[in-house]
């Protein structure tokens, strides 16, 4: 059911290529103003999802809506409200950067010229150069600026920082924060976990064409254990018998372990054993991601 707060919604969205299931009954909802990360290894179905949302491919089953508009039946109306950045897009080699931006803004039908100029400055782009003379990074800057300058309601980003140096990656993050502050919605597919962790309100993890996790980072912590390191003044206690504790590694007066579920039983044991230093760390998004896919490796 579409509500006025829904920016993007899919329902049973599926795509097959012959016998290969690229996307399997994807149900996804993104609220207006959200920044949502979309993760998965190569071939998981991320780009297929985006191509279906953009109407570049036809679904085998299911449907997708953007701001209540059917992505397949109303592509022009849908595209009026979004902008797309691909990591591997091609531009016309004989046009200059300025000509490319002018063409794409005319095609979109709107542009914030002051913001475009600010973006050109922020990304340190020379718009007088022809596209064929641009490096991979500068090529990507043109594509990013072309999407951001129209100030769309929805930004669909597929590996948007491909080829950008760390400074430009920071500039990109700044732009996404600005977009969020203005109430724009961002759907970000990326392999750069730190980028997703820094930018996204929610994260979806795709595996073999299926959405296996969707939630905020806090909600997803259960996917991986908390890492705890403790130093003792006296003998190191046997922590392997404590409920929820695993992967215990002792090294002199130091012990490292992982805890799933409640940390209370471990804290009680540590306190009684005379702990002198205690360090605990939540799993990073990368660890969460690897934990999700590590299950397959272990099973294999």
């Amino acid at each position, binding site marked *: 059911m579409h509500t006025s707060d829904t920016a993007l919604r899919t329902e049973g969205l599926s795509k097959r290529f012959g016998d290969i299931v690229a996307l399997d009954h994807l149900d996804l909802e993104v609220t207006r103003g959200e920044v949502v990360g979309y993760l998965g290894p190569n071939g998981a179905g991320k780009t297929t999802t985006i*191509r279906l949302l*953009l*109407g*570049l*491919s*036809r679904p085998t089953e299911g449907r997708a809506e953007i701001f209540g508009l059917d992505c397949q039946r109303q*592509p*022009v*109306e849908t*595209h*009026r409200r*979004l*902008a*797309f950045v*691909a990591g*591997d*897009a*091609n*531009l*016309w*080699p*004989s*046009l*200059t950067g*300025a*000509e490319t931006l*002018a*063409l*794409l803004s*005319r*095609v*979109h*039908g709107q542009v914030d010229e002051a913001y475009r100029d600010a973006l050109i400055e922020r990304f340190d782009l*020379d*718009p*007088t*150069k*022809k596209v*064929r*003379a641009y490096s991979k990074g500068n090529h990507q800057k043109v594509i990013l600026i072309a999407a951001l300058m129209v100030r769309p309601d929805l930004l669909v980003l597929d590996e948007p920082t491909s080829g950008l140096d760390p400074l430009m990656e920071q500039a990109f993050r700044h732009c996404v924060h600005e977009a969020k502050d203005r109430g724009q919605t961002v759907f970000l597919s990326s392999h750069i976990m730190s980028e997703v962790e820094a930018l996204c309100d929610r994260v979806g993890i795709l595996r073999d064409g299926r959405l296996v996790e969707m939630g905020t980072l806090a909600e997803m912590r259960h996917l991986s254990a908390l890492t705890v390191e403790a130093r003792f003044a006296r003998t190191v206690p046997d922590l392997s018998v404590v409920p929820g504790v695993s992967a215990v590694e002792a090294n002199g007066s130091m012990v490292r372990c992982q805890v799933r579920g409640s940390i209370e039983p471990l804290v009680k044991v540590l306190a009684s054993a005379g702990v002198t230093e205690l360090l605990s760390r939540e799993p990073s998004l990368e660890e969460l991601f690897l934990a999700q896919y590590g299950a397959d*490796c*272990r099973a*294999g």
Partner: protein
Amino acid sequence: MRADRGIRARITAPVRAGGSPASVVAALSARKAVRSGVLWGYIFGVAIASSEITYGRLYKTAAQRDALAATYGTSKAMSALFGPAPQLQTVSGFTVFKISMTLMILGAAWGLLTSTRLLRGEEDSGRWDLLLCGQTTRQRATAQVIAGLGVGLVTLWAVTAIITVLSGRPSSVGIGVGPSLYFSVGMVATAAMFLAVGAVTSQLAATRRLAATLAAEFLGVSYGVRLIADAGMGLHGLIWVSPLGWVEELRPLTSPQPLALLPIVAFTAVLAVVAVRLAGARDAGASILAGRDRGDAHLRLLYGPSGLAIRLLRATVIGWWVAIGLSAFLYGLIAKSTGATISGSVKEVFSKLGATGSGADAVFGVCFLIEAILIGFVAAGQVTAARSEESESMLENFVVRPVSRSAWLGGRLVVALVALVLSGVAAGVVGWLGAASQHTGMSFTSLLGAGVNLVPPAVVILGIGVLTFGTRPRATSIVVYAVLGWSLLIVIVGGFGTVGHWVLDTSVFHHMASAPGVPPNWEANGIMIGIGLAAALIGGLAFRRRDLQGA
């Protein structure tokens, strides 16, 4: 971590990969060139064989053969179009006259398209950079591609030669192995030269399309020079200025002149060396004729997809217009003098080609068949350009914005149709200028009508192209050029009366009246335009419903 350890356990010391680094690029290129060499060799061989075999059936008596020789052998018009026609009393002379010019042009087209595809095309796609990262240099890699193209050329010759030798064996044909092999050399000689021409233009031009266009323009000029040399205007010495003229001077099967191989071999070798040198003198991805890497913004045409298409394709289309205008002007220059030489039997052949008139009108009627073929190439180029935009992912830049697929394709179609109509108008107007300069007395409206009459077959080719683009996009280029090549082959072979009517009907050019030799058949033209537009409409509907597809 465990998985990582598993991978490490499987890692062993690197072993030598199959093939030598010194020849891997050549092998890769050869594999691609050999495939098309086999296909085109088969087409060449079958065309030669059909000509050899049908001669005896068509011209059974000595009197018929003498009559054939007496008329064709003295006709300047036929000589200008198809080259000289000696020894038409023999199957050898007939075969050379009937088929050689067609195969020379097809061979040149194969050469320039294959060469620019495997050199500049690979560079455009970025695959060239991957190859250059191996144990090679820009010069060596280019030399290897040229060697691979050489293997493709040998394949083209071998397949042509095998069929030609076999078809020459029956006593009714009676052409020996040696002459057959030499004839086959002659028929692939333009392919060799235009492989080299394409190799050079691939270094000069920044894109494959421009490289192919430059090479095609050189082919057009070569044909025009040869046409003047053979038109009986006292300028036969010009034959040694045109690569097509050198091949003609080989005189296979009639009075062989192997010395003419010298300029062919020298031209090919020099251009191959020049191509390798130029490859070493420029950066990978750059071009000798490259424009500046910076420029002021020119936004006049950049209002949308159609405007961009006009901007990107205008150089190519203008190149075709120059070729069309130049050749039409030449026809205008020769129409009066050659028209005066037309005798009864030539009239009959002209009639089979559709031009039932006489004099300059009839000459124009037949010559404009070549203009129709050139306009057919314009149509094919427009469709393949649209497909390239999709396969190179540039189309996505439009259709992820508020541009519908229908609007994009419709815009391209309108641009293509305008280009075709203007091509026809250019042929008529410039042809009239040439004719008027010789006081031929032909009316402007008659030649303008004849020019417009050239457009409908191209619309059919365009429509078939769009239909393929919509339904089987990856086959677009193959289908559209196959239709064009087939139509060309059938209509020229059919001009000599050796093909059944149902086969002739499969050529789009067969349905075009040979105006101004005869009045344009507007009803047939209307049907052709209807078929073309209907095919384009179906293709457009299919395009709306399919996934976008890469290369």
